């Protein structure tokens, strides 16, 4: 394990960013999101949750796939180059890393998404343990350990010291590169400090209101039963059909592919899509889901039933709680799970 004083972090960031991109939580006009480190960037390591999850580091909200040009009577196609440089993401949280695990299932299984794969290959993740978990967090429900994130490097901020523990080969490589900045911390005091911080985080996790949410009855085998439940009819009513929940979510992975006529050529791009939108998965014949109830149901069925059915029981929710915080109508996945629980409880 290594350590570095908090006040020396800017120098560390500068060193990392000297020859590669460094993504970390940056505050812009009062809101914190992951962004590229620059000398003048307002780095914010105190905000627990960025508004958007850091998934866009690996899966950007919009990215060009290729561009077509016309020269006289000829058409030429210029493919977009894949990410070729290494980069570092600093400050991801345990839930966000679990989110990347979910995305891996989608994009790294056959057929492999080469854009995503290239970014995964070149990215090194330095994760930060959650110093003060919040009431909207429920990652514990999905078996995430907020006290010890599973990344290339795990880090803990204890008072004014950042403890740094490389856990993979990539993490080791990055650590070696930063040897001048990181101080060895093999002493018992450092070990205790981290162990105490972990203990503190875990005990708070126990106290959080959502931590003991039960997902009993939600798995890949209950498709029809849940699909046909009359509860959806009630639950969807306040939904405004905006895409906030999908766009702040660390696991939502649906995208749309569109063309943009630039006047010089046509850019084919993909961008995040939301199952809450009326043109989601629009086909020539029209749309599969024509009512908001169906769209609303799709989101939760996908997270809790369809995804586990196809991925060995893995849910595609990680309990980050961003949708809980941001939904304009105060709806969220926890309320949905609880509503089903109450109804099923009444049945028994």
């Amino acid at each position, binding site marked *: 394990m290594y350590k570095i004083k908090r006040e020396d972090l800017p120098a560390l960031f500068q060193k990392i960013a000297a020859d590669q991109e460094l993504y970390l939580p940056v505050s812009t006009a009062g809101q914190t999101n992951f962004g590229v480190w620059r000398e003048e960037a307002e780095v914010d390591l105190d905000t627990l949750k960025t508004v958007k999850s850091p998934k866009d580091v690996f899966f950007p909200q919009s990215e060009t796939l290729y561009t077509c040009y016309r020269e006289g009577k000829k058409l030429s196609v210029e493919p977009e180059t894949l990410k070729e440089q290494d980069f570092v993401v600093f400050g991801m949280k345990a839930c966000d890393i679990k989110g990347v695990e979910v995305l891996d299932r989608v994009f790294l299984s056959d057929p492999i998404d080469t854009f995503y794969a290239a970014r995964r290959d070149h990215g090194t993740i330095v994760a930060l343990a959650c110093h003060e978990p919040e009431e909207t967090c429920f990652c514990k429900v999905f078996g995430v350990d907020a006290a010890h994130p599973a990344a290339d490097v795990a880090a803990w901020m204890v008072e004014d010291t950042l403890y740094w523990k490389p856990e993979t080969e990539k993490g080791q490589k990055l650590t070696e590169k930063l040897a001048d900045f990181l101080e060895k911390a093999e002493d018992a005091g450092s070990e205790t400090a981290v162990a105490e911080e972990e203990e503190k985080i875990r005990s708070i996790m126990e106290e959080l209101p959502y931590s003991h949410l039960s997902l009993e009855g939600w798995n890949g085998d209950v498709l029809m039963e849940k699909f046909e439940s009359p509860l959806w009819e009630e639950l969807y009513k306040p939904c405004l059909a905006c895409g906030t929940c999908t766009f702040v979510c660390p696991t939502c992975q649906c995208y749309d592919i569109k063309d*943009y006529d*630039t*006047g*010089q050529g046509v*850019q084919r791009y993909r961008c995040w899509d939301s199952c809450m939108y009326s043109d989601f998965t629009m086909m020539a014949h029209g749309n599969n889901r024509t009512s908001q109830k169906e769209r609303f149901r799709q989101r939760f069925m996908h997270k809790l039933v369809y995804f586990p059915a196809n991925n060995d029981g893995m849910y595609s929710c990680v309990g980050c709680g961003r949708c809980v915080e941001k939904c304009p109508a105060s709806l969220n996945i926890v309320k949905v799970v609880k509503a089903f629980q109450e109804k099923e409880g009444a049945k028994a």
Partner: protein
Amino acid sequence: MSIEAREEFKPKIVAFCCNWCSYAGADLAGSSRLSYSADVKIIRVPCSCRVNPMFILRAFERGADGVIICGCHPGDCHYTSGNYYARRRMTLLFSMLDFIGVENGRTRVEWVSAAEGVKFSQTMHEFVDKITSLGKNVRLEDLRCRKS
């Protein structure tokens, strides 16, 4: 910017002209052999109030450096009152563009009748000069549309 580069700048200007007055005014300018800059691209619309604010923003997005809307003089609208509505809309839109920091003068409304070929030609000369002095529109352009 060097003097040479400035001389090279050819503004792209979109002129929305109403079918009944201003387009005929442009015609008259042509048939009277009055000159106006070839940088002005005219789009004929049925009435000045047909000009949706989106048209204007879209033009800027795709690389226009200035947009001018020409219609019948107030009181002379072929549809009685279209230009009065357009006047309010454009005033508010221009004010919003000013509010978000777009240089004043990139947009303009001018009333040109079918008999005013001279005014049409003069207005276009003036507008081209104005846009040339303002330079390239960078604040409202979509970078994807930029010629590389």
